[in-house]
C-alpha cells in the first residue's frame, strides 16, 4: 500500500496527482488550522454573527432562526392597478411604506409578510369582495406556523418610532393597555352589555376604535382556535346577502355586527386606545378635530400613523413624505439628545 511518506516524486498522471493532493488535504488542514486555534475560533464567531444577526451585513447571506413570534402583515398593491392607474406617486408611497416596515421588522427580529391585495377574479363583485383580508390572514398563519401574533398593517401607514418594540408598546402590559368593554368609549353606540360574555377569556383580537367604529387598518390577531372560528364565520353568504349594501366597510362592519350579536366574539376581543397603534393624521376623522384620543401627536411621540382614507380626497404621497421626514427628524433629535423629548 502506498504510504503518504512515499510521495517523493510526483506521479506521472494528473489524476493521480490530484488524488494525492486530496488525500493530503485533511492533514494539511490540521497542520494549518490547529496552531492558529484562536484565530480560527474568532473567524467562526464572526461568520456566525454575520449569518444570524438581525441587522445583517449587505450582500452577506443571512439565515433567520425564524422563531420570532410576531409577524407583520403588510397589505400592498391594493387594487393592483385594476380599477385605477398606479402612477409614480402611488409607487413611491408603496416603496416608502415597505422600506419602513422592513427596517422595523429587521430591527426587532419580526417576520414581515408582504401580501398582495390586487383584485383577483374570485373577488369579483358580489363574492367576498373586500373580505380578502380574512383570507390573507389565514394564508399568512399557514406560512408562519410558529408565530403567535400577527399585526395587520394597511399600506398607508408609517411606523414613526421604530425603536419601540411591540412587546414594549402593547404586550408587556396587555391588560393595562387594552379595555374589554364599550362602557367608556363607544363611538358606534353598540349595545354595551349582551348576555353570556366571559371577560376572563384569553384576548385573541386587539382592535382600535376610531371616530366611526372599529378600525382594521392596524390591528393584532393571535393564532388560536377562537381565531380559526372567527376567520371562518367572518364571511357568510346569508350575512352578505342581507347586508352588503349597507356595510360600507365590508369586513369591518361584519365584525362590528358579530361583535354586537355574538357573545363568544366579545369574550375574545379587546380594544386598544387608537393612539397606541393607529394614530390618525389631521385629515382623517376631521369632524372630531382636537379629540385627544384620535390624532397623532408629535410631542407624545406616537408609535404608528395610519393615513386612513387618504386615497379619497387627500394627498397620500404628500402625507407619507411629511411623516417620513418628521420621523427621521425625530429620530435624529433623540439620538443627539437622548434625555430630551
Amino acid at each position, binding site marked *: 500500500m502506498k504510504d503518504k511518506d512515499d510521495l*517523493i516524486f510526483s506521479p506521472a498522471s494528473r489524476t493521480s496527482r490530484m488524488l494525492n493532493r486530496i488525500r493530503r488535504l485533511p492533514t494539511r488542514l490540521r497542520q494549518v488550522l490547529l496552531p492558529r486555534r484562536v484565530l480560527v475560533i474568532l473567524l467562526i464567531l464572526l461568520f456566525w454573527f454575520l449569518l444570524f444577526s438581525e441587522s445583517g451585513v449587505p450582500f452577506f447571506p443571512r439565515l433567520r432562526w425564524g422563531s420570532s413570534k410576531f409577524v407583520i402583515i403588510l397589505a400592498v398593491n391594493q387594487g393592483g392597478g385594476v380599477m385605477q392607474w398606479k402612477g409614480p406617486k402611488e409607487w413611491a408611497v408603496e416603496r416608502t411604506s415597505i422600506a419602513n416596515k422592513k427596517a422595523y421588522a429587521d430591527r426587532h427580529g419580526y417576520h414581515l409578510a408582504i401580501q398582495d391585495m390586487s383584485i383577483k377574479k374570485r373577488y369579483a363583485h358580489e363574492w367576498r369582495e373586500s373580505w380578502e383580508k380574512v383570507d390573507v390572514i389565514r394564508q399568512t398563519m399557514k406560512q408562519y406556523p410558529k408565530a403567535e401574533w400577527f399585526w395587520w398593517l394597511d399600506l398607508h401607514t408609517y411606523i414613526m418610532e421604530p425603536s419601540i418594540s411591540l412587546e414594549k408598546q402593547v404586550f408587556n402590559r396587555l391588560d393595562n393597555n387594552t379595555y374589554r368593554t364599550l362602557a367608556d368609549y363607544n363611538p358606534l353606540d353598540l349595545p354595551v352589555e349582551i348576555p353570556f360574555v366571559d371577560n376572563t377569556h384569553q384576548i385573541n383580537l386587539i382592535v382600535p376604535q376610531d371616530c366611526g367604529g372599529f378600525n382594521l387598518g392596524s390591528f393584532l390577531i393571535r393564532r388560536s382556535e377562537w381565531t380559526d*372560528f372567527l376567520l*371562518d364565520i367572518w364571511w357568510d353568504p346569508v350575512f352578505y346577502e342581507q347586508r352588503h349594501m349597507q356595510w360600507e366597510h365590508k369586513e369591518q362592519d361584519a365584525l362590528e355586527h358579530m361583535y354586537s350579536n355574538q357573545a363568544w366574539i366579545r369574550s375574545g376581543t379587546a380594544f386598544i386606545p387608537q393612539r397606541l397603534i393607529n394614530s390618525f393624521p389631521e385629515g382623517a376623522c376631521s369632524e372630531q378635530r382636537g379629540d385627544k384620543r384620535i390624532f397623532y401627536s408629535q410631542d407624545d411621540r406616537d408609535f404608528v400613523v395610519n393615513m386612513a382614507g387618504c386615497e379619497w380626497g387627500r394627498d397620500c404621497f404628500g402625507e407619507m413624505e411629511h411623516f417620513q421626514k418628521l420621523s427621521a427628524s425625530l429620530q435624529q433629535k433623540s439620538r443627539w439628545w437622548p434625555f430630551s423629548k
Partner: protein
Amino acid sequence: MHFSIPSRSADQTTLPGSPSFKAKSRASSHRTSYAPSIFARLRSLIFHPTPPPHSSTAFEKKRRSTRRTTVSVLVIAFVAAAAVLLTIMYALFANFATMDPAGPHVVLVLGLDNTKYKDDYLAKIVENRQEYADAHGYGLYVRYISDFKNLVHDVTKKGWQKLPLMRSAMHENPGSTYFWYLDQNAIIMNPNLDIESHITDVKRLNSLVLRDVPVVPPDSTIRTYRHVPSDRMKFIISQDHEGFQTGSFILKNEEYSRYVLDAWFDKLYQEYKFEKDEKGALEHLAQWHPTVLSKMAVIPQRIFNAYPNGVGEAMYQDGDFVASLAGCDTPERSCVREFERLWDDRGRVVN
C-alpha cells in the same frame, strides 16, 4: 528536482519563504527584550503561532486532575441545586386554582312552554327527566322558554329559543362536560341507559358516527367528514328524512359550542326566514363553515330521537332510549294524547 517534505510535527509548521518571519522566530525563541508591536503580534498569530507549552510534570498532572474533579463536582452540585429549586418553585407557584370547578358530568337541558301546555303535563315531563338524572347523577337545567323571548327575533318560532337556553345552561354550569338538550315533547323511555356508554364514549361514538352522509338529505353536495376521529367531535346530533333534527342534541362545554350556539343564533339568520327555522340555519352553517361541520357527529336517529309513528329506521321500538313526539304541535296531532299513550309504557329505573 528536489521536493521538500513538510515536517509532520504540529509544533513546527513552517511556511517557506519569508525571511523576516524567520528572523522574528529566532528573535522570540531567544527571548530578547524587544516587545513586539500589535501588528507584529497579529502577523505572528496568523503566520506563526507558538503552541502552548505542555506541562508534564507529575505535580502538574495531579493539579490538573484535582482541578478536573473539583470542576465536575461543582457542575453536579449546581445542577442538583437547580433541580431542587425548580421543583420547589413549581410546587409553590403552579396555579392549582385554575383547575376546573366541579359539577355534574352531564347536564340535561329542558325548556318548558307554559303558554301552550298545562302545568300537570309539564310536571310529568319534569318528573321523567328528574328520575333519569337522579338515577345517573346527572344535572337537570329547567327553564321556561318564555324567559328568552326578548332575545329572539320572532317569538312565534319556538325552535329558536332552545339556543339561548343551551347557552345559558352552559354559562351557568362551567364544570360540566356534556349538555344534552331534549325537547319538552319527548319521553325518556329507557332510563337505564346512561349517556356515556350509550352515546358519548369515544369507542361507542366512533361506531355510531355516520360518515359521508349528505348534510341535507337526500343528496346535498356537502357530506359529513370521513376521517375525523370521534374524540374530536363536540356536537352530536341526528337527522331524519328531512334534515337535522334539533329536538335532541349533545354539546360539549368548550369554545366550539359557544361559537356554534352564538353564530347559529345570530340575528341575521333569524331574520333570513329559513324554511325550516333553526334547523335550516344549522344546515346552512354546516354547509358553509367547515369549522362547524368538522366537529359534528351525525348519529342514527333511533339512538336518542326515535319517532313512535315513524317509518323504517326512525321508528321507535321497545327498549329504545327516547321516544320523541317532534312535530306534534300541528293541528292534526295532539301532543297530550300521544304522550299519554306512551307515558304508561315507559320503562322505570331498575336498581
